[in-house]
C-alpha cells in the first residue's frame, strides 16, 4: 500500500445522511474479480441518468468538484453492506479522505485497508467543513494525518482523533497481513491451547 501523504485539495460536499453502500456502488458492479477500475461507477445511480449520460446536478459532475480528493458527507456514511468495492471505488476516483459525523463500522475499517482516511468530527466542526466544501474549487482544504489536523481554506484548524495503530499503518503504507504474520508464534500457541480447551472447534 502506498504511504498516506499530506493532502491539499478540493473537498466535495454531500450533506445527505445515511449514504449507503448501494448508493456508493450498486451491486451490478460487484461482479468484478478485480479491485481496480471502479472509480467510473462511484455513486453510479446518482451520478448518471438511466441512459448513461451524466446528471449535471450531482456534485462530482460539477466542474469544481471533478477532481475532489476529500468528501464531506452526512451522518452515518457507508451504512449497509460489507462490500469493499465501496472504498475501492472511492479510492479509484481519487478521493483519499472522507469526513463525517459518523461512519458505519465495516466501511470505516475497510477505508484504512485501502489507504483512505475516514475522519469523524463533531456536528459543529462538520458544519464548518461542509460550508467550506460548498465554496468550490478555489477553497482547498488541507488534511495532515501526521499532526491530526484539518485546515479549512480560511485557515481554521480542526483537530481529529485517529486510532494510533491505524495511523501508523496508513502513514507507512503497511500491510496488515505482513504485520500479523510476525505474530505467528502467538497464533500457534493459541491454537495448540484451543485444541485442548475447545477440541470441538
Amino acid at each position, binding site marked *: 500500500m502506498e504511504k498516506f501523504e499530506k493532502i491539499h485539495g478540493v473537498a466535495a460536499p454531500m*450533506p*445527505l*445522511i*445515511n449514504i*449507503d453502500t*448501494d*448508493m456508493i456502488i*450498486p*451491486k*451490478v458492479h*460487484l*461482479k*468484478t*474479480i*478485480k*479491485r481496480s477500475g471502479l472509480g467510473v461507477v462511484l455513486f453510479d*445511480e446518482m451520478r448518471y441518468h*438511466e441512459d448513461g449520460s451524466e446528471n449535471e446536478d450531482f456534485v462530482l459532475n460539477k466542474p469544481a468538484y471533478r477532481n475532489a480528493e476529500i468528501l464531506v458527507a*452526512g*451522518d*452515518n456514511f457507508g*451504512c*449497509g*453492506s*460489507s*462490500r*469493499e468495492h465501496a*472504498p475501492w471505488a472511492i479510492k479509484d476516483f481519487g478521493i483519499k479522505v472522507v469526513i463525517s459525523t*459518523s*461512519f*458505519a*463500522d*465495516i466501511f470505516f*475499517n*475497510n477505508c484504512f*485497508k*485501502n489507504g483512505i482516511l475516514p475522519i469523524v468530527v463533531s456536528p459543529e466542526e462538520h458544519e464548518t467543513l461542509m460550508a467550506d466544501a460548498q465554496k468550490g474549487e478555489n477553497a482547498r482544504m488541507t488534511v495532515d494525518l501526521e499532526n491530526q489536523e484539518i485546515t479549512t481554506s480560511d485557515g481554521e484548524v480542526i483537530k481529529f482523533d485517529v*486510532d*494510533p*495503530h491505524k495511523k501508523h499503518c496508513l502513514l507507512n503504507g503497511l500491510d*496488515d*497481513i505482513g*504485520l*500479523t*504474520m510476525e*505474530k*505467528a508464534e*502467538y*497464533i500457534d500457541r*493459541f*491454537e495448540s491451547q*484451543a485444541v485442548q480447551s*475447545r*477440541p*470441538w*472447534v
Partner: protein
Amino acid sequence: MSPKTLYDKIWDAHVVHEAEDGTCLLYIDRHLVHEVTSPQAFEGLRMAGRKVRAPEKTIAVPDHNVPTTPDRVNGIENEESRIQVEALDKNARDFGIHYYPVNDIRQGIVHIVGPEQGWTLPGMTVVCGDSHTATHGAFGALAHGIGTSEVEHVLATQTLIQKKSKNMKVEITGKLQPGVTAKDITLAVIGETGTAGGTGYVIEYCGEAIRDLSMEGRMTVCNMAIEGGARAGLIAPDEKTFEYVKGRPHAPKGAQWEAALAWWKTLYSDDDAHWDKVVTIRGEDIAPVVTWGTSPEDVLPITATVPNPEDFEGGKVEAARRSIEYMGLKPGQKLSDIEIDTVFIGSCTNGRIEDLRAAAEILKGKKIKDGIRAMVVPGSGLVRAQAEEEGIADIFKEAGFEWRLAGCSMCLAMNPDQLSPGERCAATSNRNFEGRQGRGGRTHLLSPAMAAAAAITGKLTDVRELM
C-alpha cells in the same frame, strides 16, 4: 472475577495477542466465504504465495449471483456471474476448503447453510465477507461482517485485528401479540434506535419475548443487528440452542458434545455486568410493522400513515423528503392503502423453514391477487426439500407463487431476480435502500406473514385481518 457480558466472555476466550494500545489479534473459529467478496482475497494470497492457514475452518458456498430458476442446472447465463462462481469453485478446490457447489442440495444462502450444517456453534467467533453475518449471533456466537481485505487476512492468519466494541443490551420484555413476529421485533428495534444507534456496540438481545423465539426467529433478529449499525448482535444460548445444534453434521458428538455443552452453559451475561447502553421495549407494544422509506429505520406500524418530512429534525428532514419522493408516496397516505406489484419471500433474514410455514399459514386455501408477481425463494436446498415434504410448497404454488431454488435472489438483485424502475415490492429481506432490489425499485420490508397477506390483497395489509 469481575462480572462480564456474554460478549466479554467470547472476546476474552479468543484474544491471541493484545498490544499496549488495546488493539487485539482475535482468533476466528469459522470463516464463511461466498463468491462476491472473496475473489480478490484469494488473488491476494496467490500473489503473495500464501496458503489458507485453517482450511478445515473455512466454508464456501455461492449464493449472491446464482439464478434461482430451475434451468440453473444448465449453468449460469450471465457471464460475469458465472466467472465469479467459477472463481469460487476453483479457489475452494485450490485451497482445500469445504465447499457446497451450486447444484449440491446443501447449497443456499451462506448464513442459512452455516447453522444448518452445524458449522455455527455457541461461543464461536464467526466472520464472513458479508454484513449479515450477524445472523449467527443467534447461537451465542460473536459473528460479524468483514471487508475483502479482512477476508484475505483471516484466510492467511485465521485472526482479525480488532478493537473491542462497547456493550449494548436490547431487552424485549413480555409476550408478543398475535401476528407479531421476530421480523417485527428487529424492525421495531431499528425504528427505535435508528440505523446508527448501534454504531460502536455489540448488541445482546434478551428478555422474555426473545427467549420465547425459536432459533429461526432469533436468527432473524440478529440478522438485522447490522441494520441498526451494531458490529454484531447476539443471544445467550439455552436449551433451544443446544437442541437445534445437536446432531447436525458438523456439531460435536459424544464426549466432545458433553465438553462443549459444559462450556456453552457458562455463556451468559453475569447479573451485574456493565452495559454501556440499554434499550427496553415492551413486547406487547410491538405491532406488525412495515417500512415506508429507503432506510431500515423508516419503520411504522401497518396501521400508521406515511409521515411528513417536516416532522423530523436535522438531516432527516431532507432524507425523508428524498425517500418519500423515491418511494412514490404522499405524507398522510395510509400505509395499508399502498398497492404493490411484487412479493418476495426469502433472504438470510426470512428464508428459513419457519418463515415459509408462517407465510403458508396465511396463504392456505387462498390465491394471490391477479397481476401480482410473487416468488418464494427458500434459503437453502434443504429448506426447500423440507417445505416440499411438509406440503408447504404446494400451498405456495396453488396460491400462485413461483417456487424457486435457493439463493440470495431479489434481496440484492445481483442475479436475474430484480425489480424494474418504479416497481413496488413487499419484501421479507433486510434492506430498502434506493435501488437495492433493482434500479428504481421500491421496497417495503415486512415479515413473511405480512408479505403473504400483501400477496392476497395486492396492497400492504395488516396480517391480523386475515388471521
